[in-house]
């Protein structure tokens, strides 16, 4: 698709125009962290953030979501599918990859209507990273670049200019709301390409995966009985932080809630995590993953093997959020992958 050039001073008027029809979320700085928050006029936008603290999935798959309303007397029930048009601005490629993966998983078998409705009303505007988070290793997880999944993709090529790649018709329409913008010249596109190479090079310098990521599923398949699971999970608090901040985790629980008069109620779903103690327990008390290490292992298997078996791509995009948020510092997919690879190679 085509690429255009947009200047920084054009942004506020674009944003104002978009805000008429969409809720607009942009990366903002909060203390030492970055959050994707709603844009207010005149607000500063962090183009050089390293990683958004809150996982992007929360905009498509909120932590609490009503599925249906019911009436306790008549037993009538009707679905609740709420979705507001929104623009997520400034999403890094690895997060877009995570969204693409969620799209596919939510579509498989039975379509998740609530997710789909939200996704259909969401415009995704990618952004080339300018910095790499300390814990990130996305450059080793095939997540440094995405070919689809965005409506516009922005690359900052100078202090006040962007090359904007168009990814969809809607994206183009949004880009032209204030009239057409210049088409990017070959030179400008070249700068954008170099910016991309630069940041990938930078990302490759740190947190190195020591083997091709295509080997991860094989390594994981051989490591089900590795001692690393028990060893590492000794410190696990079963708090689920790694699940909840993960952009590709999507497990949920379904619960009922009734009003104070006990007449009407709603059924809602809320995030759940496989690291939590009773995640796999059934009525009668049997827990299929009673031990911490079993749950700890399941999460890595899911990221490194099971998702791969389903989709042919890894369930981890290397954003590094879990490494950052695990209080015990034991959630580190990179470390686990590297360790297991060495372990498996040694045994051979």
């Amino acid at each position, binding site marked *: 698709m085509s690429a255009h050039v947009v200047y920084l001073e054009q942004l506020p008027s674009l944003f104002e125009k978009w805000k008429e029809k969409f809720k607009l979320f942009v990366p903002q700085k909060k203390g030492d962290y970055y959050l994707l928050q709603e844009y207010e006029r005149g607000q500063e936008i962090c183009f050089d953030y390293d990683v958004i603290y809150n996982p992007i999935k929360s905009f498509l798959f909120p932590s609490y979501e009503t599925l249906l309303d019911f009436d306790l007397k008549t037993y009538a029930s009707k679905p609740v599918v709420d979705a507001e048009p929104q623009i997520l601005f400034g999403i890094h490629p690895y997060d877009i990859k995570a969204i693409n993966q969620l799209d596919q998983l939510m579509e498989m078998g039975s379509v998740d209507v609530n997710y789909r409705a939200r996704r259909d009303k969401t415009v995704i505007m990618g952004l080339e990273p300018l910095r790499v988070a300390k814990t990130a290793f996305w450059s080793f997880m095939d997540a440094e670049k995405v070919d689809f999944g965005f409506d516009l993709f922005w690359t900052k090529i100078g202090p006040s200019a962007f090359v904007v790649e168009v990814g969809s018709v809607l994206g183009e329409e949004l880009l032209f709301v204030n009239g057409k913008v210049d088409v990017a010249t070959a030179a400008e596109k070249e700068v954008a390409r170099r910016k991309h190479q630069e940041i990938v090079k930078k990302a490759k310098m740190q947190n190195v995966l020591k083997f091709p990521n295509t080997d991860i599923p094989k390594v994981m398949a051989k490591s089900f009985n590795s001692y690393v699971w028990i060893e590492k999970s000794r410190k696990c608090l079963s*708090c689920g932080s790694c699940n*909840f*901040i993960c952009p590709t985790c999507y497990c949920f629980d379904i619960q009922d809630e009734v009003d*104070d*008069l006990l007449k009407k109620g709603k059924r809602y779903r809320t995030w759940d*995590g496989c690291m939590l103690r009773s995640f796999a327990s059934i009525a009668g*008390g049997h827990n299929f993953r009673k031990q911490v290490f079993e749950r700890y292992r399941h999460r890595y298997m899911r990221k490194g093997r099971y998702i791969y078996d389903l989709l042919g791509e890894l369930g981890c995009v290397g954003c590094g959020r879990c490494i950052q*948020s695990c209080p015990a510092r034991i959630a580190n997919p990179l470390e686990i992958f590297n360790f297991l690879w060495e372990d498996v190679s040694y045994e051979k």
Partner: protein
Amino acid sequence: MSKPKVAFFDFAGCEGDQLQIANLEERLLDIASHLEIVNFREVKTEQADNYDIAFIEGSITRPEDEKRLKKIRKQAKMLIAMGACATIGGINCLKNFLGKQEYTSLVYGPYARHYSTYATRPVRAVVPVDGEIHGCPIDKEEFVLVVKSLLLGKIYIPPDYPVCVECKKAGNICQLEQGRLCLGMITRAGCKATCISAGSVCWGCRGPVPGANLDAARQVIDEHGFSWLEAEDRFRLYLGYFLRLQGWVYEQETT
């Protein structure tokens, strides 16, 4: 079906939990429409001794309390402990770490010998309980949830996962990561991470989560640069009773 009769009783505590219920204001009327409240000091004056559901607030700190509690247990079809003092012993357990002479003289001075008192314990250590509403003070939403569950015949099971879960769902930035001592990782959830969302840290008022890995928590706190003493002080504030139990009794009872 006649309305279940509900009574509130308090032991050693500040009555802050009953106040939380009174804070429900108009909503209390909706909820009370399914109940007959016969004994509720914070809201009404008249009292009766005929009740089905007893809510107990406060911890057991004197031998006399035990007698009274057992009598309530006998009368009530259902007994629900409410608030940190009642469910986990709460702050009152701080005295368990002092000698009896020490704390009685600290509190009562020269009159210490006139007061009978012993190590603080939660309600469940004295009589069987049918339900627990954790928190200091309790979350009024959770109280409403428990009452509604009772009315619907649903078993209310308080969350068996730590506060981190609800904190992440609320979209907060981890306090521990920002260099503050937060006990969310071992504390039972259900509060919707209120304190952290409001900018504070978790103090552990809802007690340890079932299966809490206290050893790991100590190590984690240590690695985050807090001293052993700091951590132990924070633990003692609300988890005192369980530090003494070393967790295992609690674990057995809740699984």
